[in-house]
């Protein structure tokens, strides 16, 4: 199928909206748009960060998911208590594949679930005593943990428990930081506010802890911020930065530790990958400590090269020379990957619907493989994310904010992409429709996808999915034309 024209895409949006009642139609129309690169401000064509419409299937998460799942969860040497009923923590446990080094249950706790398991009596009489008891118990059972964060679930906010008071008292008792995070799920319209709350908690309770202590710094200290080490992403990124001669002093928060976070204000430059979830803390450090931050993109060789050069521009000539050496070293390897997979993937069309940074960052990686992204959308973006996206996407492609189950299905049926990239909830719908699918939240149990090492895996995975012989076998023999 050839690319759709502007009129066709607009007609498609209108057609999909047809099934909604009048009011819902009006609301949803604002969230769907045809991309126009000439537009400077996204707000003229798309509305974002608004409450989801009741009655539609949204794919968003909640503030607790943003705080515990994204920002705090991957910090490996802390214990994150899911304070409230057991479900929130248990059903999100280890699902994000934030890899870490350590012995689980001894000095690392990433894949474990700690919960206060609220019962009826805790709702009636309050759960403060239970929380205090739980923290004492943790200290006894897991003495090597470095700190505790209390991630509150909805009921905590509803019954008004004072987790701050308990945290302060318990922190004195166990002599380790105990950090209350007010990330009740009902706050905000999506996980985005959870990121903000989590960032604010880090700012208030963690960041200044080591301001007075001594730190042997070098002029080349950088941090990786907003990389959650999904399938080893942050490690792949770190290799490149270290090859450039930089010293990575902290990883936020994939494979990160509390000590690293406390030492972050000693860095010379904060490298920000996921802008949406960690710009808050980067801004704070820029103002308080004067550390500049830079948004980079480590998906696909073209973007990686541009990012490496931009990172190097913050440092002296030795780093710049090393950066060029790194680029030169990987160039033939990347060319080999492209030579191998581009002929198999050339001209294929992709639709994405993910969150954070991926709807715009991976476009470059697909383009390096000769593929085209024909539709993209964010679960929880703000206007500034769409401002950036408009420039990356081709004209007359689809943009959808907080897409509903119905809209996404209908778009895919009509646009007929060769590949869909979204999450686990969407995976099986599209696979049953006979469309190759990759989970772009957790890299479909593969990874890393970041950096040079990741690109080779990314290319292989896309080829493996797209050119899998199973897609031609979906029509049963009795339905085949004779």
């Amino acid at each position, binding site marked *: 199928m050839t690319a759709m024209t502007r009129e066709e895409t607009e007609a498609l949006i209108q057609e999909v909206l047809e099934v909604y009642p009048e009011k819902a139609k009006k609301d949803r129309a604002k969230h769907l748009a045809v991309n126009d690169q000439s537009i*400077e*401000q996204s*707000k003229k064509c798309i509305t974002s*960060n608004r409450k989801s419409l009741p009655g539609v299937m949204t794919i968003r998460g909640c503030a607790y998911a943003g705080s515990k799942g994204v920002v705090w969860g991957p910090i490996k040497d802390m214990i994150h208590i899911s304070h409230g009923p057991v479900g929130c923590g248990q059903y999100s446990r280890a699902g994000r594949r934030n890899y870490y080094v350590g012995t689980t249950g001894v000095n690392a706790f990433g894949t474990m679930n700690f919960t206060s398991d609220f019962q009826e009596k805790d709702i009636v009489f309050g759960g403060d005593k239970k929380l205090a008891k739980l923290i004492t118990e943790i200290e006894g059972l897991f003495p090597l943990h470095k700190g505790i964060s209390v991630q509150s679930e909805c009921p905590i906010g509803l019954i008004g428990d004072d987790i701050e008071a308990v945290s302060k008292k318990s922190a004195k008792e166990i002599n380790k930081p105990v950090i209350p995070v007010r990330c009740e799920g009902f706050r905000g319209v999506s996980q*985005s*506010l959870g990121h*903000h709350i989590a960032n604010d908690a880090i700012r208030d309770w963690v960041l200044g802890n080591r301001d007075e202590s001594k730190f042997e710094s070098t002029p080349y200290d950088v941090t990786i911020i907003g990389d959650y080490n999904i399938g080893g992403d942050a490690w792949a990124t770190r290799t490149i930065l270290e090859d450039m001669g930089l010293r990575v002093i902290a990883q936020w928060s994939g494979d990160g530790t509390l000590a690293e976070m406390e030492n972050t204000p000693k860095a010379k430059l904060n490298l920000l990958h996921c802008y949406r979830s960690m710009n*808050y803390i980067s*801004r704070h450090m*820029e*103002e308080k400590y*004067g550390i500049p931050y830079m948004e980079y993109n480590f998906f696909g060789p073209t973007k990686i090269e541009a990012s490496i050069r931009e990172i190097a521009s913050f440092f002296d000539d030795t780093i710049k020379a090393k950066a060029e050496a790194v680029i030169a070293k990987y160039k033939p390897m990347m060319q080999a990957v492209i030579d191998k997979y581009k002929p198999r993937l050339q001209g294929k069309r992709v639709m994405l619907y993910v969150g954070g940074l991926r709807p715009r960052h991976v476009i470059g990686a697909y383009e390096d493989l000769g593929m085209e992204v024909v539709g993209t959308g964010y679960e929880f973006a*703000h*206007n*500034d994310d769409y401002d950036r996206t408009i420039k990356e996407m081709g004209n007359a492609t689809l943009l959808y904010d907080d897409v509903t189950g119905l809209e996404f299905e209908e778009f895919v049926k009509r646009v007929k992409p060769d590949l869909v990239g979204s999450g686990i909830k969407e995976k099986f719908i599209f696979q049953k429709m006979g469309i190759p699918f990759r989970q772009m939240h957790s890299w479909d149990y593969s990874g890393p996808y970041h950096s040079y090492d990741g690109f080779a895996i990314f290319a292989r995975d896309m080829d493996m999915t797209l050119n899998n012989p199973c897609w031609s076998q979906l029509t049963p023999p009795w339905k085949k034309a004779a």
Partner: protein
Amino acid sequence: MANIMIRRDSKGSYQFYLPKRDLEDTIVSMEFDTPEKWGGEIKLNNGGTYYIEPQTAPARLPYSVRAKRLDAAE
């Protein structure tokens, strides 16, 4: 009145950030922009207008300051 943060972006123009509403945008015009007198009415790219009490320019950006909303977009 709300706290806002003003920083300079890579292109050299002022960026406005309102943490409470997660609103970030480019400042198109600032009434006073000299070292001695800085602030006044600021216009955002999205059409909103805010007011900062005119003051001496901050020594270093980013800078947090109280601002009054005169006319917010939407």
